[in-house]
């Protein structure tokens, strides 16, 4: 048995094996290490044989898990030995003991190089092997050209060349610059003609790495890969020793298909056809056989072929064939195939059009969720998570909840997080969401992070309809005997806030609520006690008229906790006690919590973070990224006031907890902020009444772009004018179809009006008819915008064939997330829309929206309020900054001046308000003339970033219908577009509500000003002269 000729080594190994316990083993190993150390110290008497033996012993000891912190030098020095046996040991032990960063490796670079360029084939092999396994950056710099030479040399034997190919691969990974692309791609193509299969396999591995980094450069290798694949698949002229269980090198097949997946597409029709023939053959011709190795090998090829088909975007027929295959796989008994079936189905989710076919396998996938194998369960969970959407969310989430009670602990956290996310993303209604989360807390409280219950509180707080329901649910759960502490927290919080809404129900009087919550008090931790105290204070506040007995009980608790060890609790107890003696003032201080600002779900963020270090599929990641934005946005119609607070995005993750704390401590500590509760109870902004009946008039203008004369002028000034042709056609289309609204379903309210309101506001209703309501909420950050379209079904039956498509003008990049095909009854679907502004233009994006209700097909083309002024950010500028800038931007096209007539008469204050609503910051005092107005703003677009714009308006106190406007900015097209925009508003738009001044909401629509003057700037110019 012992082929090894080294007796000493064998003796040592059996000694170690004979050790009775770990302690004995350690003693034996230490003895040996000591021995080796002394022998190495006195190197003189060491024969090469002994040296070799000791180095092997070191490796063995190292493998047993002991630290070997000496002798590396001896191992490395063997590399320089002249004879093969020593050299071999030196190379192999070095590459096992050291990693690429070890300093000693530097010492042998020269020896290694000499071995590589030397004539001795066996030495070359040893050197290439070591460099291929542990070569680092330095090796790559000094050895790459030599290795390259070996690979393409015609005099080298295959055994050297295949090692050279893989060695070069390693060096390339360490430093991609070592392969000079020019010329090398031709070499690679030649190498792919290699007859020796070993060399070809290695070269293919190298090609995969090269192509993955730069597919274009190796375009010429593509047809060769296809030919190799054809040859393998047909088993044409493959040496028998390279067939594995009758399959022509499955590894080479897999590698070749892997390489093909890095090419974006295959354009050449012949190559493409040839490849699809091969793939078809693999897909159809793979059978399940008895021999497990043959089976594995053929399925390895099959799964790679599936991946390639997915990558190539094959015809739908082939895709369905793939899904059908996968459907078969996830039902088989063989665990490996089932695992891979699930995994690949998850990848398949990325392919459009097949999701529906995948959904048919839902039941089967759910069975896999109960598989004894955790690897398979994980895959099933991932797949369910990925395939979940509005249509099947209820089923899937309920399955997950059910599974939660039996799932093993390792998976519970992930499971509960995923269930919470899906519930939030796809909730058909909010009460269901509350149900799910409460169940989740009930079943797996330990695994429910705080973020999850914070989120449910946010939802309930921001949705008044939900409050009684949530409170009632919380009340039910509190009846349960053994309750998780998180449930106590969320229950107490909800009942404190909204318990009074249940007052009429049995068992829900303040006193009863108090008693049931108070039962939990002795068993909970400090953080929960704090919440319970707040709850008591709230209950006390809501029990009007005060029940003396209840009050006494609660006061007793407050007094008890006044001397509690935790300082936060102490403070709460003291303050609540003091406050509750104030009587009526308590109601103000402890009023309902204000609504939370809208924010992205912290859960989604968390999920994304978590995915970084779990074995998630990239498909899932991508999908979750795409869908992130589908998360319910807390519906919080706040009055518009320019831009939203900017700090929200930055503190996304930590917000919830901080916020909660902040709010509760606000209440406790500061009586000065006692308006907090009352003031910030935002009333939903009433739909702004019809300010502008002129909307219709403005409509065409806004879409058609600059009128003829102005357009002519702009062709000289505006280098981008030519580009505007395209959006104009879109605009015309939109305009034409606006009239088509006169089909059976009539919009409620005028679409144009709604559009104009939204041009100055960031949220409101864009469109409404008897069946559907489309709301918009927008956030703007520099040149980015994020709109959420709320598609609400107003009926009790679903809306089907819902389509929404954006027709963006050229200056906007818009991306609408998936719009579900069906909107369930009484449900609201939210579709985020990302906008990037490329440059200044007043062209308008159009939403082409259609749906079917019953037999009625409704189609509406809606202008989206993504207008120039949304990308403005007001900025005030001081005199010393303003004037030099103004001076430097002199004369057209950077500075334009125009006299405008037919202006709607307004006072300067009104005009300042109008400017403010357009995001232009009026700076008083810059102009000495009190009849003039100076404003400044920054315009954000991708091309210009933040560009400063300066505006000056000179009015004539004797005739308020005319004025002179001067605009300056660093971009001619921006100057022009902004001037036109301001002009439009001055002429047409009456002053509207969003002005900060408490202007009456219902401003009377002004009588239309002469449309002639407005439509024909030429005439106006003439009048001016």
């Amino acid at each position: 048995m012992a082929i090894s000729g080294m007796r000493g080594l064998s003796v040592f190994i059996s000694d170690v094996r004979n050790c009775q316990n770990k302690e004995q083993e350690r003693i034996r190993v230490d003895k040996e290490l000591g021995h080796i150390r002394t022998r190495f110290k006195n190197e003189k008497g060491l024969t090469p044989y002994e040296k070799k033996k000791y180095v092997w012993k070191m490796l063995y000891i190292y493998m047993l898990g002991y630290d070997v912190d000496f002798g590396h030098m001896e191992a490395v020095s063997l590399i320089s030995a002249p004879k093969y046996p020593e050299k071999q040991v030196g190379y192999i032990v070095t590459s096992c003991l050291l990693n690429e960063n070890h300093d000693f490796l530097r010492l042998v670079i020269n020896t290694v190089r000499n071995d590589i360029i030397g004539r001795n084939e066996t030495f070359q092999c040893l050197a290439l092997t070591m460099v291929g396994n542990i070569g680092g950056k330095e090796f790559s710099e000094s050895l790459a050209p030599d290795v390259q030479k070996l690979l393409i040399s015609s005099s080298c034997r295959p055994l050297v060349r295949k090692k050279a190919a893989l060695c070069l691969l390693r060096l390339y990974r360490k430093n991609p610059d070592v392969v000079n692309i020019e010329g090398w791609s031709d070499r690679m193509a030649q190498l792919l003609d290699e007859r020796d299969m070993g060399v070809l396999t290695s070269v293919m591995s190298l090609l995969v790495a090269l192509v993955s980094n730069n597919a274009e450069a190796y375009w010429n290798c593509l047809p060769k890969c296809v030919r190799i694949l054809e040859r393998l698949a047909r088993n044409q002229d493959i040496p028998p020793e390279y067939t594995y269980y009758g399959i022509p090198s499955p590894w080479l097949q897999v590698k070749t298909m892997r390489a093909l997946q890095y090419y974006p597409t295959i354009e050449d029709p012949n190559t493409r056809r040839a490849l699809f023939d091969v793939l078809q053959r693999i897909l159809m011709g793979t059978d399940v056989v008895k021999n497990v190795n043959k089976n594995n090998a053929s399925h390895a090829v099959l799964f790679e072929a599936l991946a390639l088909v997915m990558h190539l975007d094959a015809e739908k027929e082939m895709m369905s064939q793939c899904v059908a295959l996968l459907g078969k796989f996830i039902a088989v008994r063989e665990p490996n195939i089932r695992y891979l079936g699930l995994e690949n189905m998850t990848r398949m989710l990325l392919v459009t059009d097949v999701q529906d076919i995948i959904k048919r396998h839902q039941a089967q996938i759910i069975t896999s969720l109960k598989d004894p194998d955790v690897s398979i369960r994980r895959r099933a969970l991932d797949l369910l998570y990925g395939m979940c959407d509005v249509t099947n969310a209820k089923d899937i989430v309920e399955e997950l909840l059910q599974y939660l009670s039996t799932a093993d602990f390792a998976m519970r956290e992930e499971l509960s997080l995923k269930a919470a996310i899906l519930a939030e993303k796809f909730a058909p209604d909010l009460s269901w969401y509350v149900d799910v989360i409460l169940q989740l807390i009930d079943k797996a409280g330990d695994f429910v992070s705080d973020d999850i219950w914070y989120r449910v509180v946010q939802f309930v707080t921001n949705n008044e309809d939900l409050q009684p329901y949530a409170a009632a649910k919380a009340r039910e759960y509190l009846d349960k005997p053994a309750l998780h502490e998180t449930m106590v927290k969320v229950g107490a919080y909800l009942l404190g806030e909204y318990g009074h809404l249940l007052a009429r129900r049995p068992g829900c009087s303040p006193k009863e609520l108090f008693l049931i919550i108070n039962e939990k008090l002795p068993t909970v931790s400090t953080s929960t006690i704090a919440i319970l105290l707040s709850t008591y204070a709230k209950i006390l506040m809501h029990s009007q008229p005060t029940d003396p007995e209840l009050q006494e009980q609660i006061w007793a608790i407050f007094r008890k906790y006044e001397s509690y060890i935790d300082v936060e609790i102490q403070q709460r107890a003291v303050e609540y006690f003091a406050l509750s003696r104030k009587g009526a003032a308590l109601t103000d201080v402890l009023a309902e919590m204000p609504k939370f600002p809208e924010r992205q779900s912290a859960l989604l963020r968390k999920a994304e973070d978590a995915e970084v270090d779990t074995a998630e599929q990239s498909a899932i990641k991508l999908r979750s990224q795409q869908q992130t934005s589908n998360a319910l946005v807390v519906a919080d119609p706040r009055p518009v006031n320019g831009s939203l607070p900017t700090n929200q995005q930055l503190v996304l993750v930590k917000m919830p907890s901080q916020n909660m704390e902040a709010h509760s401590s606000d209440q406790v500590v500061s009586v000065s902020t006692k308006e907090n509760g009352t003031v910030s109870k935002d009333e939903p902004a009433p739909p702004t009444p019809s300010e502008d009946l002129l909307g219709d008039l403005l409509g065409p203008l806004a879409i058609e772009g600059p009128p003829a004369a102005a357009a002519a002028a702009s062709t000289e000034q505006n280098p981008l004018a030519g580009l505007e042709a395209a959006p104009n056609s879109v605009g015309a289309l939109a305009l034409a179809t606006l009239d088509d609204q006169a089909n059976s379903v009539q919009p409620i309210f005028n679409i144009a009006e709604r559009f104009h309101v939204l041009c100055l506001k960031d949220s409101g209703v864009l469109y409404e008819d008897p069946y559907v309501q489309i709301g918009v909420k927008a956030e703007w950050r520099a040149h980015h915008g994020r709109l959420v379209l709320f598609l609400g079904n107003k009926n009790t039956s679903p809306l089907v064939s819902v389509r929404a498509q954006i027709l963006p003008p050229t200056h906007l990049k818009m991306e609408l997330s998936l719009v579900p095909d069906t909107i369930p009854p009484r449900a609201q679907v939210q579709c985020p829309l990302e906008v990037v502004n490329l440059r200044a233009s007043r062209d308008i994006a159009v939403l082409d929206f259609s749906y079917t209700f019953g037999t009625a097909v409704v189609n509406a083309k809606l202008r989206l309020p993504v207008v120039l002024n949304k990308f403005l950010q007001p900025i005030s500028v001081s005199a010393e900054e303003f004037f030099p800038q103004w001076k430097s931007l002199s004369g057209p096209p950077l500075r334009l001046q125009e006299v405008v007539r037919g202006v709607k008469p307004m006072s300067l204050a009104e005009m300042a308000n109008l400017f403010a609503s357009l995001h232009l910051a009026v700076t008083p005092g810059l102009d000495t003339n009190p009849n003039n107005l100076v404003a400044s703003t920054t315009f954000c677009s991708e091309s210009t970033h933040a560009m400063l714009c300066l505006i000056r308006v000179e009015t004539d106190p004797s005739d308020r219908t005319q004025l002179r406007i001067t605009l300056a900015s660093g971009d001619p097209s921006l100057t022009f577009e902004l001037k036109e925009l301001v002009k439009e508003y001055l002429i047409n738009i009456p002053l509207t509500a969003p002005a900060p001044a408490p202007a009456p909401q219902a401003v009377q629509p002004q009588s239309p000003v002469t449309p002639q003057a407005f439509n024909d700037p030429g005439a106006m110019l003439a009048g001016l002269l």
Partner: protein
Amino acid sequence: MWKISSSSSRSQFRIRRSPPTATLGSLRCVEDIVFEKNCEQERRRKSVGRFGFYFPTMINFVLLISRQGKVRLTKWYSTYSQKERTKVIRELSGVILSRGPKLCNFVEWRGYKVVYRRYASLYFCMCIDPDDNELEILEIIHHFVEILDRYFGSVCELDLIFNFHKAYYILDEILLAGELQESSKKTVARLIAAQDSLVETAKEQASSISNIIAQATK
């Protein structure tokens, strides 16, 4: 009507560093977010190795462990420090040895996949990137075992214990740089035999009279 103020000496206009609306702050924050998002996408598009390189590696390491958790062979194709190596072995042997029979051969571990296969008392494990082809690796393991089998003649764990260095030689002929190097059993057997004979020849030379004399007179 329009007076140009001469008070300013600055010729270059710049936006105030701290405008009241915090324009620049928000600008930066958006850019940061976008940047991070791009990086994230980039990272997801390419599978990043442990040290930030974007290349698909096939096998990060090979591990042979016995049922008792004793390590019989380790080979690291990605760079791991000594500490990391010990940790990986400890963690993985816990994960793999605890798995029952008739489960699938794949384990997800720290964002990687470990493909393992048990032969009698020995577990052969290979760690790969999550996007790699698992079955292919599974058959590389079997390929390796078949070659060992052919070399030792019905291989058992003891063979690998006492001839662990041979196992390393053989593995080096099959895998290189974490990729499959040679898929012909015949070729590998031929190469190993050639190496053995080289070592034998050297030994014979060493034990020849002239060498003994040379040693003695040194």
